[in-house]
């Protein structure tokens, strides 16, 4: 028996899509940010199972994500573990003909965890530093941002889908790089992993900001349906050096749009769980920003199922 090769864990669909992925891999299958084609194959094959079969994710408005060039995907955290991030990445990879890969801004504590740190860097999930964000956007890449940070994933079930404070750093970077912001809402994660308690001691032991405890104790998400709603790209004028009030005003606009997408997504999610879900209604939430003419998604679901 020959040596074990990671490529054997890559599904055929993922292999085909990886060939269409526009990343500058060298002869070792590595891109300049340390992303490995081989590792991406395993990563997306694993996400594929969760995306298509476990969470049965329905994705709306994927056409709002630019086919090429830098953009910032900004959305809500949903659920006690960052499965939302994985499913957003999967939607960009599976829900469109030309797959794209996004880089998530990972909490810094993960950089010291063996294997986790290595895998995050090989699949392009870098520590959440402004330097990384600017460089990736200038390189024409997609960036996935959860401005609620760990506060978002740490929400208890009683506070589900209530957005907590957005950080403002992402907005200055968007202005500095001229990158559009594509708002999104992730729905279903709060039910899939409802956090009812934080085990502080356990969190301290593993060096994480919190340890979610669901009613069934084991912090693993349940196989419940999830949805992702992408809104239309938002553009803001400026250089990133504006006073705090201006930046905070822009951030509030983005937060409002994400809130609307969440509200709308929750309504659809209820229909889905009640069995009345058919397709996305055509009415759109009102536009909270003159620069964001329509924050709603504009088409029906991009169904991952073949």
């Amino acid at each position: 028996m020959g040596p074990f090769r990671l490529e054997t864990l890559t599904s055929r669909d993922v292999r085909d899509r990886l060939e269409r992925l526009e990343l500058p891999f060298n002869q070792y299958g590595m891109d300049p940010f340390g992303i490995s084609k081989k590792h991406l194959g395993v990563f997306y094959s694993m996400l594929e199972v969760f995306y298509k079969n476990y969470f049965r994710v329905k994705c709306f408005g994927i056409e709002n994500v630019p086919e090429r060039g830098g953009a910032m995907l900004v959305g809500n955290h949903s659920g006690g573990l960052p499965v939302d991030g994985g499913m957003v990445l999967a939607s960009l990879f599976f829900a469109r003909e030309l797959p794209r890969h996004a880089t998530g801004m990972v909490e810094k504590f993960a950089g010291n965890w063996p294997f986790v740190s290595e895998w995050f860097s090989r699949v392009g999930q870098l520590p959440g530093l402004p330097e990384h964000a600017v460089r990736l956007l200038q390189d024409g890449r997609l960036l996935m941002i959860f401005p609620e940070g760990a506060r978002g994933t740490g929400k208890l079930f009683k506070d589900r889908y209530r957005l907590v404070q957005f950080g403002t750093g992402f907005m200055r970077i968007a202005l500095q790089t001229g990158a559009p912001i594509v708002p999104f809402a992730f729905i279903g994660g709060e039910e899939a992993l409802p956090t009812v308690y934080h085990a502080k001691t356990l969190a301290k032991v593993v060096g994480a900001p919190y340890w979610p405890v669901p009613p069934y104790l084991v912090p693993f998400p349940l196989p419940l349906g999830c949805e992702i709603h992408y809104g239309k790209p938002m553009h803001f004028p400026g250089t990133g050096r504006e006073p705090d009030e201006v930046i905070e005003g822009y951030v509030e606009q983005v937060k409002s749009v994400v809130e609307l997408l969440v509200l709308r997504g929750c309504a659809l999610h209820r229909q889905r769980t009640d069995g009345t879900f058919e397709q996305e209604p055509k009415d759109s939430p009102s536009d909270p920003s003159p620069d964001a003419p329509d924050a709603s998604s504009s088409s029906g679901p991009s169904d991952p199922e073949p």
Partner: protein
Amino acid sequence: MKILITGINGAHARMVALRLRARGDEILGIDRRPWPDAPEGVHVFQTDVRKRPAADVFRQHRPDVVIHMATITHFTASAEERLRINLHGTRLVFEYCHEFGVKQAVFVGRHTIYGAAPDAPLYRTEEEPPLAVSTFPELADLVAADLFAAAALWRWPGLKTAVLRMVYMLGPTHRGTLASFLGGPRVPMILGFDPLYHFMHDEDGVEAIVRAVDHQLSGIYNVAGPPPVPLSTLARGTGRQPIPIPEPLFKYSAGRFGLPYLPPGAVAHIKHPIVVDATAFRRATNFEHKHDAHAVMVSFRES
């Protein structure tokens, strides 16, 4: 042009000397070690940069350009010796440059001064602080030398000072920090970590130093060749066997079982990457590396 190279007997310094000599520059060298078969046109003064004869070389020969390569990077030298050569030597060389009318001083430094840390940016620009003072305290003397050389930019504006923070040089010479690390058949790794390693071919490194002279560069510049590759790829690409070791056991394995000796601070450099952004240097000198990562590894393996 009259060019003085300190530490001229180092493998890379010799390559620089021969390269400059071949195109007609007059080469002076200072080193504690002899270069018995130095070619014609390369005049080596066997002395220590900290001793008076070294000052005499500056005084009597009045070089136009000084390329300072007399620094110690290996850890077989004691900490005191490293400090004496790296910091005090650098201080004296720059003072001589100022005192004896040198037009340009090129300090050949290391990218490792940026230090490796889990929360550091992947690509380091020249503005990044030298984290190595805390992540790898054994490198403090090189950090100090780098900062001291950079201070010449404001202390003596008339002296064009180029501080080059070069990635590891690797290739047929088998010399340098990375070559020593890859010297044995087995390469230690920390289990669960596989950082990116940034390196360039010996010849590309020499070319970069020559370009810094040609363009009369002044300022602080990162110098790099091809994009980085993971340590495991580097180990295999150079014909070595990567050996992942759990971090708590690492200190017990260093220097044993055919693995290289490494000081405690080196652990961070095997866990986390140090990668630099060399855009400014490329823009200033039109430098392009000729050897990709594969070619560098093959040249090291096959020589």
